[in-house]
């Protein structure tokens, strides 16, 4: 069995003295694990860094085997190493993909969105906004999408400013009434209308974080949300101060 695909490295752990077990989020084969012979060598370790984009060839005798990868570099993310905030974003993204995606389940749309965030991390000031939308897309892709089009109470499309923690649906100020303080924030950044200010992004991440924590994590066997996400929020809060 073998296939070729492009993907982004999510994680690497040593296997024996010279090899590494590598997790790659591929376009056409989802999150896939394989052994890279010589993966801890001086030649390969710079390529096998989380976030690097690679052309991967996977081979195994049987489909259910872990198999082995050979990788060719396509795009390094070394430029992020010196940028504290962007590196925190990269870590959170890779950790969440590793945490949330079932192995070998194909998600081509999420892959494209992931590549967009990775590209933006390197050069755009608006990457926190792209990251927020990516988290919302991750929830949607895994079946926990938010319905932010109309108010769950009044049916209006105007003045939506809350999300119901129970249903994940938008609620308008009028519909919320005196229950506003019990609802989650719905900043324009989460609906695609905001200008990407960090305060709005942080509000949006509070909402997506709630659903990651209370819907996705229990569905994955009560695993803890990766610490990398908390560190990203900390960095963004510092940035907003």
């Amino acid at each position: 069995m073998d296939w070729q695909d492009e993907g982004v490295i999510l994680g690497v752990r040593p296997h024996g003295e010279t090899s590494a077990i590598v997790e790659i989020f591929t376009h056409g084969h989802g999150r896939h694990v394989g052994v890279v012979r010589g993966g801890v060598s001086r030649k390969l370790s710079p390529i096998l860094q989380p976030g690097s984009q690679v052309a991967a060839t996977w081979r195994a005798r049987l489909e259910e085997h872990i198999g082995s990868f050979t990788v060719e570099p396509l795009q390094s993310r070394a430029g992020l190493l010196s940028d504290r905030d962007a590196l925190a974003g990269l870590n959170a993204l890779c950790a969440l993909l590793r945490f949330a995606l079932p192995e070998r389940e194909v998600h081509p749309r999420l892959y494209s969105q992931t590549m967009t965030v990775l590209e933006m991390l390197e050069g755009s000031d608006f990457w926190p906004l792209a990251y927020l939308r990516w988290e919302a897309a991750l929830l949607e892709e895994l079946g926990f999408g938010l319905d932010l089009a109309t108010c769950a109470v009044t049916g209006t499309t105007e003045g939506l400013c809350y999300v119901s923690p129970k249903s994940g649906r938008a609620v308008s100020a009028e519909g919320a009434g005196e229950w506003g303080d019990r609802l989650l924030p719905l900043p324009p950044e989460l609906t695609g209308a905001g200008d990407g200010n960090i305060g709005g992004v942080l509000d949006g991440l509070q909402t997506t974080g709630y659903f990651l924590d209370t819907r996705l994590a229990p569905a994955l066997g009560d695993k803890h949300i990766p610490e990398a996400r908390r560190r990203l929020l900390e960095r963004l809060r510092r940035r907003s101060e």
Partner: protein
Amino acid sequence: MNSPRDIEMLIEMMAKLPGLGPRSARRAVLHLIKKRELLLTPLADVMQIVAATARECVTCGNIGTTDECEICRDPKRQTGEICVVEDVADLWAMERGAVFKGRYHVLGGTLSALDGVGPEDLGIPRLIARVDAEGVSEVILALNATVDGQTTAHYIADQLEDRVAVTSLAQGVPIGGELDYLDDGTISAALKARKRV
């Protein structure tokens, strides 16, 4: 497999060492036995001594034979600079260079979002306490140029902000390196850190 049980056990133990497999361990043990007086007996003696005395330095995490390692006890070492390294092997590499004259702090790993290694699992709170207690003026982060290494470096820099100057090693073209053989990341880091000639 005609070796007596004790020798077989020695081969099994040697085979667990990095760089050795069962065949090379067998060859090494055979060599040790052949050179019993010259190698085997002194090796056994020194291993016994090291097994009894080797310990982690209570201050920096280096490995020595006393509670406080030689570097921490050396009065000639500058106390104002601490070089933070990931591992004892990195400390030894820095010492081989014989350029740094300050003291060290060994973290014992890096923060890893993926493997759930947090600041408390490393020696970071101990480093912060040292900076406050020892009147340190500069902390040099000599961590690997990997995602985990630099994530750790940024975390430490955040923690030490406003307390002390924090610097890190330069990244770029190694001595004897040829541009044609360097990866994109190294070239980009080298270009960012270019200096006037």
